[in-house]
């Protein structure tokens, strides 16, 4: 039997020996493409189908359009709101920004994992020993990534088209396909960006960091473009703006596909060019971190963890600070619109907040999402240290496993709490530069408030690390997506409160508009502490496991 299986495998490999890299990459990308495509599909379908149930009358829909249609503050957060009186316009406004960001993150993580990550693990050494070259193998890998994003698009498109058939939705197949294509566009672009960054960097971590900086800059530029009608032209300067300019389901402008396709082609060609020029395992950028002073030498495992995480954590800190300044800088106009518009007040009341601080509370929710990514990064970095075998170098010496994990936890908790406080301070600085009347203490505590969902996510991640180490990535990211989708969709779909209560973002109070829910925060911390406690104890007694 085994011999038969071996023969079959041999026959399969033998049939298309020149496409091994493409097929391996496609397998890895398609697997996650199906999962993320399903997430896209759920978000689009639930938003489209729920619209007519929530906004039943024309008057309600007009009020919604008036509230959001010309509000630059919400445009800066969620993108421009066009034709909110229609199912199509509402769906685009509700889900597009979230899906654009999720798609970009998926693209970045997938391409850096399957290109630079595989190279880092030494598996490309084996592949390149076959009848191929670095450039050909990279071209195949890009083909595999394309197959992966095709599965994402196919799943999302199928559900979008089927949702369009619903009598309350009524979106034709053509526009539905155009919409799903637009939603997948950032995934395609950032697959290419990730592949290119992988050629520049010397490690997967560095490549992902570089790609994140590009994504952060694109998002910040788009925010500026959407914050004022006079700056709308700036959308053409950012990949996220190009996707907005596609204007699916409202005023389709397919020519905005030109820069998108051009970016993909340029980055793909750049990837191929650099792949052929550089040495395997090396990067194109000079490794500036080579120069270290004695003072910077990591002398303890905690110092090592801090040293290895420093570039990623500093990049996040800089992004959070810049984003806080930007958000705070348009707080006053956002607050004024909310205060002067009864319909807008009512719309924000639906989200559970009111008053001039409502805008900042929604803005800080995005900070909570950003900090959650920091939490996910920390727990996955701990897992990578174990799976790569690096941790063994420490644990075969007189150094306890529990101490290693507790130090890792301490580092992550410090990063998450300081990150939250930094978000509060940056938002306050932005707000006072706009002459908005916000208290430093209230924004500082609102900043701290956004740390709690991230702490919960990290705590649960530690437990998963102890119980099912090989599942850390998939479980923690799934949990995050669950929290995120429930929070995004819960406000428009009449979700059961049990489901809503299962989202950490929903449990977090909309501070500074609403008082901080210390009880809910205490529950989140308690769950995190219990998870961490069990996690540390179980980790002490389990086998170390590789990939």
């Amino acid at each position, binding site marked *: 039997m085994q011999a038969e299986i071996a023969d079959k495998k041999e026959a399969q490999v033998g049939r298309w020996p020149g496409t091994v890299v493409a097929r391996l990459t496609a397998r890895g990308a398609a697997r996650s493409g199906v999962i993320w495509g399903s997430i896209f599909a759920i978000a689009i379908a639930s938003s489209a189908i729920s619209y007519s149930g929530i906004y039943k009358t024309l008057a309600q829909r007009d009020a919604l359009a008036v509230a959001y249609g010309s509000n630059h503050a919400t445009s800066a957060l969620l993108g421009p709101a066009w034709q909110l009186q229609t199912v199509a316009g509402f769906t685009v406004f509700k889900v597009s920004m979230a899906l654009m960001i999720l798609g970009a993150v998926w693209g970045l993580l997938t391409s850096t994992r399957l290109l630079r990550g595989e190279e*880092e693990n030494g598996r490309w050494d084996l592949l390149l020993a076959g009848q191929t070259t670095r450039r050909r193998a990279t071209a195949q890998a890009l083909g595999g990534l394309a197959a992966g994003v095709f599965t994402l698009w196919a799943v999302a498109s199928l559900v979008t088209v089927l949702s369009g058939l619903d009598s309350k939705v009524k979106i034709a197949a053509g526009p539905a396909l155009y919409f799903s294509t637009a939603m997948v566009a950032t995934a395609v672009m950032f697959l290419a960006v990730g592949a290119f960054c992988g050629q520049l960097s*010397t*490690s997967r971590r560095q490549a992902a960091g570089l790609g994140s900086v590009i994504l952060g800059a694109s998002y910040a530029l788009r925010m500026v473009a959407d914050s004022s009608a006079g700056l709308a032209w700036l959308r053409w300067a950012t990949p996220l703006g190009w996707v907005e300019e596609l204007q699916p389901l409202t005023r389709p402008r397919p020519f905005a596909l030109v820069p998108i396709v051009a970016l993909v082609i340029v980055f793909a060609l750049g990837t191929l060019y650099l792949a052929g020029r550089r040495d395997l*395992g090396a990067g194109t950028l000079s*490794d500036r*971190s*080579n120069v*270290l002073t004695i003072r910077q*030498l*990591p*002398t*303890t*495992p905690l110092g*090592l963890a801090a040293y*290895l995480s420093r570039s990623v954590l500093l990049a996040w800190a800089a992004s959070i600070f810049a984003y806080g300044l930007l958000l705070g800088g348009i707080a006053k106009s956002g607050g004024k619109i909310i205060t002067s518009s009864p319909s807008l007040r009512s719309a924000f009341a639906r989200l559970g907040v009111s008053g001039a601080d409502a805008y900042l509370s929604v803005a800080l929710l995005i900070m909570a999402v950003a900090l959650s990514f920091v939490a996910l990064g920390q727990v996955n970095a701990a897992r990578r240290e174990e799976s*790569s*075998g*690096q941790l*063994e*170098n*420490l*644990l*075969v*010496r*007189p*150094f*306890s496993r529990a101490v290693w994990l507790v130090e890792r936890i301490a580092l992550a908790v410090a990063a998450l709490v300081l990150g939250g406080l930094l978000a509060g301070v940056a938002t306050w600085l932005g707000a006072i530069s706009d002459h908005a009347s916000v208290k430093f203490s209230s924004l500082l505590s609102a900043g701290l408030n956004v740390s709690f969902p991230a702490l919960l996510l990290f705590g649960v991640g530690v437990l998963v690390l102890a119980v099912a180490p090989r599942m850390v990535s998939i479980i923690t990211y799934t949990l995050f997506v669950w929290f995120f989708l429930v929070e995004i969709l819960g406000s428009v779909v009449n979700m059961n409160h049990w489901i809503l209560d299962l989202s950490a973002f929903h449990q977090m109070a909309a501070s500074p508009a609403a008082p901080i829910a210390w009880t809910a925060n205490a529950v989140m911390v308690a769950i995190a502490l219990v998870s961490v406690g069990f996690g540390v104890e179980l980790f002490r*007694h*389990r*086998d*170390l496991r590789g990939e």
Partner: protein
Amino acid sequence: MSTTSLAYTSGNKAAASQWAVETHGLTKRFGENVAVNGVELLVPRGCAFGYLGPNGAGKTTTIRLLLGLIQPSEGHGEIFGLDCQRHPIEAHRRLAFVAGEANLWPSLTGAETLHLLGRVQGQVDKAYREELIARFDLDPTKKVRAYSKGNRQKLILIGALMARPDLLVLDEPTSGLDPLMEQAFRHSIHEARERGQTVFLSSHIMSEVEALCDRVGILREGRLVEMGTLAQMRHLSALTVEATFSEGSVPDLSGVPGVSSVQVDGRLVRCQVRGSVEPLLKALVAAGVTELLSREPSLEELFLAQYGVHGKSPDTSHDAS
């Protein structure tokens, strides 16, 4: 029991134990697969112990159990009388480990790596570290990322040797080293032995084990099938005899008591003899032997005798012995 009394008890046991490594019924199962099966090891202090077996025999799993990186399904192991699972920190204070594959932090330089490992180990002979860096011809200013496989291996070897631990646990330590560095490694192990350090060397390079070790254990499919000094194992094994005869007088030796594996090549007869050599000598003299050569089996021959030339089971008489 209080922490102090526990430490006192474990400390006393450690001082009293004559064994550097000791396992009793050590077993590790991964699902249905039994990787290590009831291994009973006794490695005296100051000894160099060669742990032999082909790929997949369970050598690395045994070592990971001894290091407390994985938990045994049954049985237990001790390092200097300290239970590997219950007192890993105390046990690790006495040992240093070299893996066959150096998975280090690519962004650190060699010097930074040694500095970090020394700090975590808690003891470093700095002068010896510098001597080892020179002996292994390592450039410590380079990043680990820029090192070849052999240089990364040198780095973890130096990281282990510089601590001057009581026990060196080495798992295929010379993987990727060139012959010159292999010599430097052997020199370092001889030095360690002269200082009274114990060496636990897992390898399938027979010449290396033969040159460095005085005791050997052979592992087969997770079971320890042979353990003892090389002299004991040779004594229990067959002696290889080559006899040359004058033209036309080649005898049939297959019926001689104790003789096996008879091969005839013209006037040359090659065979193996187990037990008393007297019947064979009588037969050879009677047939008019002109030249006679005999030698003890090499470690490779002992190993192959355990596994058979094609990996099949050895003959039952040998197993019984």
